[in-house]
C-alpha cells in the first residue's frame, strides 16, 4: 500500500499541498489533472527525486520519506522514455538487476518473461536509437518492471505516442498490470485513458486534490465544478435548490429526488441532452425551447450551443442527427433531458 500523508511541496511559483492518498497493493491508480497541476511532482516525490517540504510517504507500511531514490523500491517510466542512449535494449532492461541480487535466477526469468510479453526479444541487441516510439516505450516499461518494484510510477506514458499506437500500449499496460503484482500509479491528463485503465483516481487542480474515488464515481458524480468540466461535462451551472427543483437563473429544472443540503451546482453531460424539433415530453423530462447560438464541428460529431431562458447549454450531436434536424444558427429547437441525468453537487 502507498500512503501519502499531508504532502506539501513548495517551489518558487508553485505549491503542492494537502496531498493525502491511500493506494492499495496491486491497484491501478490514476492521477488526473491538467498540465501544471502538480501530477508529476507527486510521482517524483514518491520516487524521492524531488525534495519535499513537509509530509510523510509510506510504501508497504515502511516510511520512505527520507530514503534516497535507490532504496525506495519504486520504478519510474517517463513520457519521453528516458532510455540510456549508450546502452542496447537488453542492457537498458537489465540495468538495475545488479542492485537486486536476492534471486538472480528469478530475475533472469523475469526479464525473459517481460521481454517476451512485450515483444522485445528480437530487439534485444539493438541500439535504442533505432527503435520506434512504441518500442522505446516497451523497453522503458520492461526496464522499470525488471527490478520487480513494489510501485511502478508512470508519468503520462502514452502521450508521446501517436494515436494508433496509443491504444495498443494502453491495452498492453492493462494486461501487464493484471500479470504482475506491482502497484501502478499513473499520471495522465486524459480522462478516457483514466477510465480505461484505472480502478480509482484522484483529480488534481493547481496543487490540490479535488476528488478521490473509483473512476466511474468520479466520472459520473464529480464533486467540484473543476472535476465536472475536466470529466467532459460542459454544462455546469450554479443553482439554488428547493425540494426536487433546481433553479438556474430563471430556468427551473426538475430533479429525480430532493437535492439534499449544501448543494450548489447542477451538471448535465452534453451527450445526455436531446435536440428535437417539437420537444420530447414525459414525466421525468426537462424540456425547453432554445435558440441555436453557435455550431462547432468536432470531427466525429457537432457541438451545438443553444440558449434557453438565458442559460446556454452545450449539446453533443451526431452528424446524422445534425443533418436530419437541419440545425442552423439562430434556429429555434427543443432541448430535453431526463431528470436522472442531472448530477447535483
Amino acid at each position, binding site marked *: 500500500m502507498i500512503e501519502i500523508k499531508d504532502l506539501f511541496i513548495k517551489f518558487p511559483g508553485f505549491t503542492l499541498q494537502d496531498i493525502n492518498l491511500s493506494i492499495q497493493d496491486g491497484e491501478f491508480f490514476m492521477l488526473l489533472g491538467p498540465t501544471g497541476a502538480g501530477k508529476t511532482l507527486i510521482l*517524483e516525490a514518491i*520516487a*524521492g*527525486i524531488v525534495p519535499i517540504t513537509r509530509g510523510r510517504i509510506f510504501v508497504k507500511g515502511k516510511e520512505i520519506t527520507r530514503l*534516497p*531514490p*535507490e532504496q*525506495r523500491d*519504486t*520504478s*519510474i517510466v*517517463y513520457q*519521453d522514455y*528516458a532510455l*540510456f*542512449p*549508450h546502452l542496447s535494449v537488453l542492457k537498458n532492461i537489465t*540495468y*538495475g538487476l*545488479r*542492485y*537486486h541480487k536476492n534471486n538472480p535466477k528469478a530475475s533472469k526469468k523475469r526479464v525473459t518473461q517481460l521481454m517476451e510479453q512485450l515483444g522485445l526479444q528480437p530487439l534485444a541487441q539493438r*541500439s535504442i*536509437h*533505432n527503435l520506434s516510439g512504441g518500442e522505446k516505450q516497451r523497453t522503458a516499461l520492461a*526496464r*522499470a518492471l525488471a*527490478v520487480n518494484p513494489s510501485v511502478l510510477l508512470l508519468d503520462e506514458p502514452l502521450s508521446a505516442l501517436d494515436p494508433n499506437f496509443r491504444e495498443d500500449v494502453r491495452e498492453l499496460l492493462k494486461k501487464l498490470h493484471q500479470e504482475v503484482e506491482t502497484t501502478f500509479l499513473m499520471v495522465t491528463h486524459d480522462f478516457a485513458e483514466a477510465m480505461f485503465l484505472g480502478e480509482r483516481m484522484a483529480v488534481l487542480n493547481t496543487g490540490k486534490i479535488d476528488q478521490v474515488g473509483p473512476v466511474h464515481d468520479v466520472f459520473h458524480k464529480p464533486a467540484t465544478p473543476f472535476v465536472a468540466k475536466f470529466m467532459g461535462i460542459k454544462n455546469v451551472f450554479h443553482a439554488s435548490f428547493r425540494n426536487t427543483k433546481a433553479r438556474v437563473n430563471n430556468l427551473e429544472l426538475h430533479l429525480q429526488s430532493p437535492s439534499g443540503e449544501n448543494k450548489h451546482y447542477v451538471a448535465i453531460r452534453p451527450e445526455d441532452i436531446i435536440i428535437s424539433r417539437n420537444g420530447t415530453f414525459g414525466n421525468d423530462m426537462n424540456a425547453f425551447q432554445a435558440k441555436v447560438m453557435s455550431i462547432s464541428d468536432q470531427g466525429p460529431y457537432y457541438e451545438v450551443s443553444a440558449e434557453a431562458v438565458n442559460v446556454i447549454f452545450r449539446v453533443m450531436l451526431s452528424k446524422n442527427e445534425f443533418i436530419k434536424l437541419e440545425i442552423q444558427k439562430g434556429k429555434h429547437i427543443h432541448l430535453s433531458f431526463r431528470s436522472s441525468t442531472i448530477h447535483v453537487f
Partner: protein
Amino acid sequence: MAIKRKIDPFFWIAVFSTVTVIVFIIFPLTEMVLQPSVQDLKDAICDPDVLGSIGLSIYTSGMAALISFLIGTPFAYLLARKDFFGKKLVESIIELPIMIPHPVVGIAILGLAGKNHWLGQLMQQVGIQIMGTVTGIVTVLTFVGLPFYVNTVKAGFEAIPVRLENISRSLGASLSETFVRVTFRLAWRSMLVGIIMCSARAISEFGAVVIVAYHPMIAPVMIYERFTAYGIKYSQPVAVWLIVVSLLLFLLLRICSLPKENQT
C-alpha cells in the same frame, strides 16, 4: 538549379567579415610558419634545449589538464545539477582567472608561496617549492586552465537529461554508481573537449609562468628569450615547432572526441 533570389546587403557584410577574420588569424601564422628555412627548423628541433622546453610545455599543460579533470569534474557536476545559495558568485569566481592579467596571476601565486606567508612556510616544510620549479609551472597553468575545463564540462553535464540519472537511481544505483554508469559515460566527450581547452590555454600561457618560473624553461618562455636576446629570426623556428606539436596533439584528441555515427 535553384531559383536566384535578391541577396540582402547584410549577407555581403557577413561574408566580408568572415574573410577578414579568417585572414587576420591565418595570415600571420602561415607567414611565420613559412619564413624559417628547412635548415633552421632542423637545427631547432635537434637542439636539446628546444626539445626539452617543448616537452616541458606539453608535460606541464598535460598535468594542469589532469588536475583540472580530477578536481574540476565533480565541481562542474555540482554546478550543473544543483541550485544553491551563492551559486552565481561561485560561477563568477571560476571565471576570475580568465579576466585577471596574467602577470598578476603569477605574482598572486608567488605571494602565497613566499617565505613571508604561512602557506609558503608550510609548503617549504613539506618540501614543496613553487618558485622556479615544474610544480610552480603546473600550479600556474592549472590556475589559468581550470575555468576552461569547468565551463566546458559543466555545459556537457547540463546537456545530459537529469531524468536519465533519476531513472538510474530509481533502479537501485547510488549517486556515485549513477555518475560512473550513466553521467560519465555520456559526458566523457565533453570532458575530453574540456581537457583540450584547458591544455590549449595552458600551453599558450606566458605572462604568469615567466614570473613564477623563468627556469626550467617552457617553450613560450624560450621563444621570448630567444626573441629578446637574438631577434625574431632565431625565435621563429621554436615557435613553429611549438605550433606543430600542439596542433598535432589537439587534432588527435579532437578526433577521439568526435561522436561516432548513430551516437549522441
